[in-house]
């Protein structure tokens, strides 16, 4: 396949640093007629975008809706100042984007900079803390009693509070918006849930060490980092999976180690297929990706021994050779010879990352995320081809999306419904707000149905609108909009622009609508809003003064409106 078909040679000016990072791309470009200019001196690198016929404003709003958590006044000004293509290019290289203010704001979250082992020793499980203090862990008042003896910051809840707060702060205020959007996407793709056992102690490491370093790299590297991470090994039970009949208690006894009573009671261990199944179904090939139950079992055999070093004390990856099934395996038509060790699993990941099924499955999900709930098949096909040609280079895949005519089509503009997270954060951003990620904002998201880090099934949160659009959730969204604009979400503040048109309610309404919705109001909506704030077009008091419209009320209505639920 010719490189020019995928990349439309010359449309992309790669920075030198990018070329170093993405060798396959560079190789592809070598053969192209129009290589990037040797020196672009002052000109910042820019992603070439297809002609959309849109105004620059509309383009800027669209990229901020899709590559960011919605436009804020500052980000909109920035995109327009830089130019849309330059901004997109900078977002693809987050380490070139200065973000010190947000990093400083996160410094107070001590649990996030600890190792998993430090978190395990600093934040002991509540039941253990209670027992040590003579309290009954099943007592509904236990936590209250415990908090009389200990500060809240000593309980494991503190880790969750800090993790969620950091996510909300970054989503709202980070200038590396695409990075945060992609972290959320890939976390959700490789979902783990905080409420399962030891997972919550492992989550900061999962994000920082398994996901973040690979968001713009190769999918194979991302897949491998996830496969080896204790959060995933615990969540999908692979750490308990061993070759059939493995006598772990006996093995421990033979080296003179104490055998935990639970383990002694279980007896011989065996295969657990949980991770193998989700690896094929959810992480790579997709449910229709052409694997069988026999493949699931063989893949599970390959990953036996991939475990965790003392999950409740150390919590790092450990390979246990004695638990590994060293027999010959047959995975998707390939033979993995007998006598292998940990590399059996790596070989499976190689096969999966190279599979056309994986390319199509990932392409479809990404098109759903960035373009439309019903992905245009031709675009899925092109993005999958890019994936295969670049051996899963994710930046190349993102570019294929952002440079597609489908991304810049009128159907795509405001064509997706916001998830609760996207809605809440975009509302704060629309009014130039800031957040400390305090409890009221977190609770609001719980109420809208997206408690962060607590998606229970391995499928994560839905990417499409359907599950999010229901009556109860809508009422919660509307009440959130009203509470936010009225200053009733402590720890999260918005700044309403000063009333620029005291002489005309209609003009003020139009100005606020431009700021929040970035589109003119329909006549009926405009009339509804004027009625709602108790005004006619120019409401004159008996003394001849005009009554200024209350921007709080208007902003609440705009953020709760159906238009603002879309992006």
């Amino acid at each position: 396949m010719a490189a020019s078909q995928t990349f439309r040679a010359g449309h992309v000016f790669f920075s030198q640093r990018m070329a170093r990072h993405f060798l396959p791309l560079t190789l592809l470009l070598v053969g192209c007629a129009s290589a990037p200019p040797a020196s672009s001196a002052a000109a910042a690198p820019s992603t070439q975008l297809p002609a959309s016929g849109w105004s620059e404003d509309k383009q800027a709003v669209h990229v901020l809706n899709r590559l960011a958590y919605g436009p804020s006044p500052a980000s909109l000004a920035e995109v327009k100042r830089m130019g849309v293509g330059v901004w997109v290019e900078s977002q693809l290289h987050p380490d070139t984007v200065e973000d010190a203010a947000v990093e400083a704001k996160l410094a107070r979250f001590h649990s996030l900079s600890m190792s998993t082992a430090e978190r395990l020793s600093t934040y002991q499980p509540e039941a253990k803390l209670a027992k040590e203090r003579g309290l009954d862990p099943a007592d509904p008042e236990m936590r209250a009693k415990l908090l009389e003896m200990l500060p809240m910051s000593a309980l494991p809840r503190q880790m969750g509070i800090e993790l969620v707060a950091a996510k909300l702060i970054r989503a709202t205020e980070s200038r590396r918006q695409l990075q945060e959007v992609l972290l959320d996407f890939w976390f959700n793709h490789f979902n783990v849930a905080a409420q399962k056992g030891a997972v919550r102690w492992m989550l900061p490491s999962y994000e920082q060490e398994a996901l973040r370093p690979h968001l713009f790299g190769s999918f194979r590297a991302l897949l491998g980092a996830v496969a080896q991470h204790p959060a995933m090994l615990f969540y999908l039970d692979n750490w308990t999976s061993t070759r059939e009949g493995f006598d772990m208690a006996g093995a421990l006894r033979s080296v003179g180690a104490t055998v935990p009573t639970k383990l002694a009671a279980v007896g011989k261990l065996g295969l657990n297929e949980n991770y193998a199944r989700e690896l094929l179904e959810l992480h790579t090939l997709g449910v229709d990706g052409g694997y069988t139950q026999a493949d699931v079992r063989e893949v599970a055999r390959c990953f036996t021994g991939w475990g965790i070093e003392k999950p409740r004390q150390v919590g790092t990856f450990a390979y246990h050779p004695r638990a590994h099934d060293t027999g010959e395996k047959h995975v998707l038509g390939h033979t993995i010879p007998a006598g292998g060790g940990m590399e059996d699993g790596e070989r499976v990941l190689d096969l999966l990352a190279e599979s056309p099924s994986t390319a199509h499955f990932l392409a479809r999900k990404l098109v759903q995320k960035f373009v439309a709930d019903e992905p245009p098949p031709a675009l899925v096909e092109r993005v999958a081809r890019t994936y295969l040609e670049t051996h899963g280079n994710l930046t190349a895949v993102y570019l294929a999306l952002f440079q597609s005519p489908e991304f810049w089509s009128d159907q795509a503009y405001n064509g997706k419904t916001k998830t609760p997270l996207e809605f809440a954060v975009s509302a704060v951003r629309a009014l130039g707000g800031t957040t400390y990620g305090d409890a009221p904002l977190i609770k609001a998201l719980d109420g809208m149905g997206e408690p962060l880090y607590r998606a229970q099934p391995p499928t994560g949160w839905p990417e499409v609108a359907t599950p999010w659009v229901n009556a109860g959730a809508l009422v919660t969204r509307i009440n959130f909009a009203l509470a936010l604009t009225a200053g009733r979400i402590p720890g999260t503040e918005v700044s309403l622009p000063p009333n620029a048109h005291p002489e005309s309610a209609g003009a003020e309404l139009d100005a606020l609508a431009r700021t929040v919705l970035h589109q003119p109001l329909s006549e009926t909506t405009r009339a509804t809003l004027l009625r709602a704030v108790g005004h006619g077009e120019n409401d004159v008091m008996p003394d001849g003064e005009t009554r200024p419209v209350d921007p709080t009320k208007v902003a609440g209505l705009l953020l709760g409106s159906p238009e603002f639920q879309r992006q």
Partner: protein
Amino acid sequence: MSDVLDRRFFLKSTGLALLGLGLAPGFLQRAVAQETRSRRTLVLLFLRGGADGLSLVPPVGDAAYYAARPTLALPRPGLEGGALRLDAAFGLHPALSSLLPHWQDGSLAVVHAAGLHGATRSHFDAQDFCETGTPGQKTTPDGWLNRTLQQLPEPSAGAFRAVALQGTLPRSLQGSAGAVAVEGLNSFHISGKGGLDSFEALYAGAVDQAMRSTGQEAFEALRTAASAELSQSPPQNGAVYAKTPLGRRLQDTARLVRAGVGLEVVATEMGGWDTHVGEGAATGQLANRLRELGDALSAFAKDLGPRLANVTVVVMTEFGRTVKENGNRGTDHGTASAMLALGGGVRGGRVYGNWRGLDGPGLFENRDLAINVDVRSVLSEALQATLRPPDLGAVFPDFTRSRVGLFG
């Protein structure tokens, strides 16, 4: 989904009018006919944490029970702190005493021991499997209650057709059929004066079809709730609810039943059942939970009065606990537990399930109460007695139910 919403919207706005003109297509006629006959309401109460069935309904006739639980076993009926007699083999935990009259009048039944074949001892996975109804299948996209609703015609006034009285929609109600999650009727309103009218007008003009029809649903529900003053509606028949979370939720459920808003399914939950340490016997932690449960259920039954004939409550948990008490005077995660059924259609006053004792075949992996009845068999019968979905095989795929005979 948009098809579903379109159809729902269409049905609501045009169904009756077309019928009046004799022009209604067949599916509309069926839907409207269905609506005019009064349907029963199924209330599903999930005890999260793994409730100890051997303390809820202790096998007081089984010597092995007393051998396994030296400090936790409930004394035999008649003794101090003893269980309440159900029959020769079983007693009821004394903290559930307010439910005893319902046992005696035949509206309360017990299933012992119920569990989900193929489930696990992880709360996380076991709850998930109970709610999807597909043990071992983690990627099932919808819940068994939602799959039931998908098979039934949309009622014409569906705002409160399926309600989760809890903050978020439980997995059992997730799926393409509409369902509302409300923490409580008290908080189900748009804050501020005039907000409801303004937002209703805004959503009536929404370009996006799903937004428009969901908005219509939401505002219909809000107006229903407001006009019937649902959140203010007082309990009837002298019922008094304790001010507990479950009491409030069941009180709201009774309000919705009385208001005649087309309620078909309610899902709600109660936590605090994970009694690893200091479980207690006639008094103590578990007894406190059980009192909250029993008192809330009996207040609900009293509040509904004769209406209870059209409401069926099923109480379930994700797994039972170990037969033997552990070293902390508690119990660990086990397998089977007890289920309760209360209300309309229940052939009460009996313990269902072929009890196999607490040793030998009644014991699973030498530690847990073994499963005598699959939870899905009980839920299937509850559905047949209430909502009557035409295809139970699609509600619980790959499952062959066995007859329990719980409903008459």
